[in-house]
């Protein structure tokens, strides 16, 4: 078994597998990418997958406006007008119609895909190491449920961001690492969504660091056993910082730079030979993907209200790239078949499963991560020989002041609004012990008309909670 001592996860936002990596291997019939024959219909029109050459800001921000991503939207995207059914596989036919009716956008926008040349960072790493073309979001739900699945193996029955009580009480992989004496850190840019987990509150001040610290830790060969990196969800006008989470309509070029920064830091770290880097996205965010999500093992007995969804199905495929010197170049990483010949796809709980396996963290968190295939099988080289590119160099993009101001004045997306609301309900400082943590409260909506105001709430309260004064401290 590969000698992995460090696992680094970078989880970006709201892109489907087809939209980012669908044309990575266009001539390989074994690769589950786009054939360019895929389409959706709306009214009497068909909308095929498409791409435009070049990489203008407009292209890099597609789809714009943000597609619908609530549970009801996703059901429509997967099942069309017929609605969710446990008996019929999703037909993936409702993306275009949902986008037109919900987001009021041009139908073709959600059918757009990027070529490898347009997203060279993730594409380069996918080819230099391994790409998972069978990694699904854990549930056909919004960001928070899927991110909580990545941390805890469940969303406790919640399907939409704004409905979650804060703190989220499910035991997390961070708590398990702590219990087992393994070091871990969350590196973030503005407000870490994972900070809403109950079992990290009393540990937050010592385990949450700004992203700049990740670069320093990697440089010094001081990466912890588990690093979870959260992108910047908000614009920061004070630093001319555009969100690098790739959440539509945020420019993917900024996310590409984040991918490059993370890879370059890990690749040039003393920890490189013993590190597994996982780059993935929380959910598809309304972007088209042609593969129907298969059924899934429910994590627990919780069901959503009023939809009565038992989390017995995965979400849409999301991009996932594994990077390690133990992974052969050009790998197409797929889960091994089960004993009955069926295949359980990778999902976010595969991260939990892999961590449990690599670091001997004990029993499952939920039935979902118990059933999830481990990623350890991708580490197939006998020795860490695949060093990949020494570094990857993203194109430098500096947003114009007018663009920055316009983005800051726009209405926040669901993720941003939910984070700001949650931040407003955070304690003024992290509780010193678990006993001091009060019961969960569903955040009251404060109402943030602009991204800038939502960002002010999120970052100011995060800094208070963590006891830091500025972004770079």
């Amino acid at each position, binding site marked *: 078994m590969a000698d992995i001592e460090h696992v680094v996860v970078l989880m970006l936002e709201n892109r489907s597998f087809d939209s980012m990596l669908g044309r990575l291997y266009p001539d390989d019939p074994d690769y589950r990418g786009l054939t360019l024959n895929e389409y959706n219909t709306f009214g009497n029109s068909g909308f095929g997958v498409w791409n435009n050459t070049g990489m203008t800001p407009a292209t890099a921000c597609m789809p714009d406006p943000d597609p619908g991503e609530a549970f009801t939207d996703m059901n429509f995207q997967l099942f069309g007008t017929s609605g969710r059914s446990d008996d019929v596989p999703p037909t993936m036919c409702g993306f275009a119609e949902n986008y037109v009716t919900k987001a009021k956008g041009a139908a073709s926008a959600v059918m757009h895909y990027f070529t490898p040349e347009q997203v060279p960072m993730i594409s380069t790493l996918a080819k230099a190491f391994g790409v998972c073309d069978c990694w699904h979001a854990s549930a056909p739900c919004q960001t928070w449920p899927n991110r909580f699945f990545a941390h805890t193996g469940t969303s406790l029955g919640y399907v939409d961001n704004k409905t979650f009580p804060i703190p989220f009480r499910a035991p997390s992989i961070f708590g398990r690492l702590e219990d087992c004496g393994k070091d871990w850190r969350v590196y973030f840019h503005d407000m870490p969504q994972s900070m809403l987990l109950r079992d990290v509150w009393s540990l937050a001040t010592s385990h949450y660091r700004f992203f700049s610290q990740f670069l320093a830790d990697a440089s010094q060969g001081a990466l912890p056993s588990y690093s979870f990196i959260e992108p910047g969800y908000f614009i920061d006008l004070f630093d001319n910082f555009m969100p690098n989470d790739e959440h539509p309509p945020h420019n993917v070029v900024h996310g590409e730079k984040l991918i490059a920064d993370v890879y370059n830091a890990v690749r040039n770290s003393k920890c490189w030979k013993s590190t597994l880097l996982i780059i993935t996205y929380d959910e598809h965010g309304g972007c088209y993907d042609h593969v129907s999500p298969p059924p899934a093992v429910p994590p627990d007995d919780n069901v959503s209200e009023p939809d009565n969804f038992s989390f017995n199905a995965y979400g849409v495929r999301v991009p996932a790239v594994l990077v390690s010197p133990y992974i052969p170049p050009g790998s197409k990483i797929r889960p091994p078949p089960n004993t009955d010949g069926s295949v359980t796809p990778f999902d976010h709980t595969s991260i939990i499963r892999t961590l449990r396996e690599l670091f001997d963290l004990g029993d499952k968190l939920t039935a979902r991560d118990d059933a999830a295939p481990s990623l350890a099988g991708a580490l197939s080289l006998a020795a860490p020989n695949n060093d990949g590119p020494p570094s990857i160099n993203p194109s430098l993009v500096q947003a114009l002041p007018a663009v920055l101001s316009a983005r800051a004045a726009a209405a926040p997306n669901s993720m941003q609004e939910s984070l700001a609301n949650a931040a407003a309900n955070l304690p003024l400082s992290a509780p010193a012990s678990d006993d001091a943590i009060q019961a969960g409260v569903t955040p009251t909506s404060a109402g943030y008309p602009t991204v800038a*105001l939502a960002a*002010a709430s999120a970052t100011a309260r995060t800094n208070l909670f963590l006891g830091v004064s500025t972004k770079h401290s």
Partner: protein
Amino acid sequence: MNKESAQRSFGLFILVWCVVAAISQAAVPVTGQSAPPAAESKSVASTSAPAPSTDGAISAPAPKEPGSVQIFGLVDGPSGPLISGKDKANHDIQSRVGLNGKLWVVLTQPLPLSPDKYALFMNGTEVKGLEPALDGSYQSEARATMHALVFTLQRNKNNDSFWKDLLGSVAGMHVPVVVSLGEQSADGKSARPTIVGSGVAASSFELEVIGFWRLIFALAVVVAVISLVWGHARTRTTLRNSYLPQIKPSQQTYSLARWQMAFWFTLIFAAFVGLFVVLWDTNTISSQALALMGISSGTALAAVAVDVMKDSPADAANRGLQALGLKTYADVLRVQQEIADRKTELAGLETSESDARHGRHGRSPAEERRKQLQIEIQDRDNILRTYNANIQPFLTQGWFKDITTDINGTTIHRLQAVCWTFTLGAVFVITVYRTLAMPEFNGTLLTLMGISSAGYVGFKYPEVNS
């Protein structure tokens, strides 16, 4: 050094000679009171002729030899007391005769030649370029009529250096002068002092360098300008950068370029006013002084151009604050007031809450309002926290630190500009004091100042973008 003491020191630095003179004048009345001993005058030949009495009354002259003309005394008009000699307290008499005044040289007997054949000597040096003397008759207090020569103490290009030598480097408001006369040679170009006082006191007087009211006027003008420029600097953005309009004016950082500009403006203005009231001349600004003002103005202009040339951290902060609804400092005050208002209302609600809760189920209207107020207070508090976190790099850290540092700390190009400005400023003040003229800096010194300023502007470009 804090900013207040720095400004105070600077102001005192400029006014030092005026202040010394003012103190001296304040202690001494215009005439007839005690005064510090005058500086020793340049020696001239003295005679043993009897001096006039100390009260100015004229007794009969007693020439040393018959036919020998001597200076009996000095006056400032056809009658009145002598301005030469000593007063009753045996102090030098502080005259009112100064530049552009008329000096009456009272003689022991009429002169053999016409008045225009005589030259005036002060401290043994001929005062060239004066208009020919006029004949005058002096009526003494003893009602004796005596012959006098009347000279108008004009300053022109022929005697400019003489007056500057005489009036420069003075420690008070008067300078001691010993007067003598001499017959001009046949060609009218040279003369020797041959007619001297009947005693040293008879031909000695205290030439007025600057009148008391003129000094007061000059001080008032200079102090007014200094107050306008430097006094405003404490509370307004006259000498500050104004990078962020959301910051209180008194907390903005000081601008090196603006400070330099104000420094030279103040020095040159004060020198101009000072020279005007002493020399009564408006043509005192040298081309080098103009060059210094030009360099400082050009530096300030270039610094502003650099500031607006490219998107800077200040621009980013400004955008960020504007996005939060904070366009000016008034908006910050408004948000603070909104928080205070809501806290006041919240306190009132909490007082009456227990009454409202009785007999009610669920949230009372007061509870609903309280929750709403808490959220509104928190949102505004978040805005202010963001504001306070992001304005820190743009707050003043004191005058000296502001002008010698950028966002990354002390910089050599700023230190260099400050040092050379102070050095040349000191040279400027000393030169004006000693020569009663603005200095004629040579080209090398001006080039040095130019290089220093250019270096500052050049290094400011990356500084703005750091």
